[in-house]
């Protein structure tokens, strides 16, 4: 084992890690509001809103992320008619895919608050959207915090899949260095270690929040 290969290539690897973090953060920032909308559609009483949302969520959830990335990598340039860059194509695919998973978390969060809260809100004269925004969502958000953080960890793990289209995130950077230095043992061990540290921190945080919620 010769760990100097990591020290020597650290700037390149860290650039890759930064790319992974950036991708994951942007995906969460865009997927979450989208998921809020779809979740409200999913529990709507109107069929023409509820069914399309349900079909979208189930279609996304029954396909592997890697296939969705391939789909969007092919479709986005075809639809826009011009190349939009790897990063944008991958990000759109990720946002669409993960918004389905966030939708299910938000939906169960909203449903955990209970129907009589909605009725109470409506009966005090608030509109449906005011009830959602001021009464239901703040409570729902607190209930679903652990699940949301776990999902963010999954998004971060999912960014590795951008490797298949050659986006230079952390795993792809590691791969490129192994091609040059021929030291896969050290490099992949290091990559696994870095992913473990980040994801373990995230999942421990989720677990702490969950414990606190059970107590109160």
């Amino acid at each position, binding site marked *: 084992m010769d760990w100097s290969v990591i020290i020597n290539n650290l700037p390149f690897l860290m650039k890759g890690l930064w790319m992974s973090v950036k991708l994951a953060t942007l995906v969460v920032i865009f997927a979450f509001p989208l998921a809020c909308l779809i979740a409200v559609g999913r529990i709507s009483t109107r069929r023409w809103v509820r069914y399309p949302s349900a079909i979208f969520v189930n279609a996304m959830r029954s396909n592997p992320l890697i296939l969705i990335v391939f789909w969007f990598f092919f479709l986005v340039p075809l639809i826009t008619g011009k190349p939009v860059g790897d990063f944008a194509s991958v990000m759109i695919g990720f946002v669409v895919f993960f918004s389905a998973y966030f939708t299910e978390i938000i939906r169960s969060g909203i449903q955990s608050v209970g129907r009589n809260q909605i009725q109470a809100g409506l009966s005090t004269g608030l509109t449906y959207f005011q009830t959602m925004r001021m009464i239901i969502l703040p409570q729902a958000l607190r209930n679903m915090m652990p699940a949301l953080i776990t999902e963010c960890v999954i998004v971060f793990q999912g960014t590795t899949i951008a490797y298949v289209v050659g986006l230079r995130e952390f*795993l792809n950077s590691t791969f490129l260095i192994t091609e040059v230095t021929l030291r896969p043992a050290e490099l992949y061990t290091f990559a696994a270690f870095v992913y473990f540290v980040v994801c373990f921190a995230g999942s421990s945080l989720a677990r702490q929040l969950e414990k606190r919620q059970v107590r109160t």
Partner: protein
Amino acid sequence: MTLKYDFDWPMLLEDPYREWIIEGFINTVYLSLMAWGIALMIGIFIGTIRMTRSPMLRFIGTVYVEFFRNIPLLVQLFVWFFVFPLMLPHDWMMSWNRLPHVPFLTALLALSLFTAARVAEHIRSGISSIPKGQFDAATSSGLTQVQMYRYVIIPYAFRVMIPTIASEFLTIFKNSALTLTIGVSEITSAAKSIEAWSFHGIEAYSVASVTYMTTTATVVLFMGWLEHRLRIPGLIAKK
């Protein structure tokens, strides 16, 4: 919007595309079923040792679960594919590399160990859902701890956990797509190759998507039926 695209669905039935699709489908199903079986065995074992009284065994179980859950599956695949053979003694490495279908075996290893950690978590929450009286009853009728799990707890927990175990099959079925990165020719890689050869991406990826979606729908329907058949009277309210 300038959507220019000539659809050519019949091309999927021509060779070599048809062969690739059939091969890909068989590999996906074969890999997922085998990995699922192995993952259930390891997962039940790890899940159970996490529930024992021995702190040592519990610690091993926790380390296993945290380790495999917090490293992305794709990274695990690469570690098994590129690093694992290097860690073996020289003779073993040679015989490992000489085995037929090394990518398939690596994929099987990585998928089963990864999913076992998820199964172990489901097992633990399944066992936690069992009323404490069952444990007391088993102990007081003179069963050892192993017997208690073997004859009372696991058969009971298994039925509670059918939905999650089924969903793990679907997870493995979807995760098997990642193995294209190490050269397993499963259905997503077949779709990718067809796209690369013919530039007919929509047709190619539809094949893979339809495969995953129909499988999901079938498993969900079948498991709904099975769950209904095997439900424990009194535990879950009758619909």
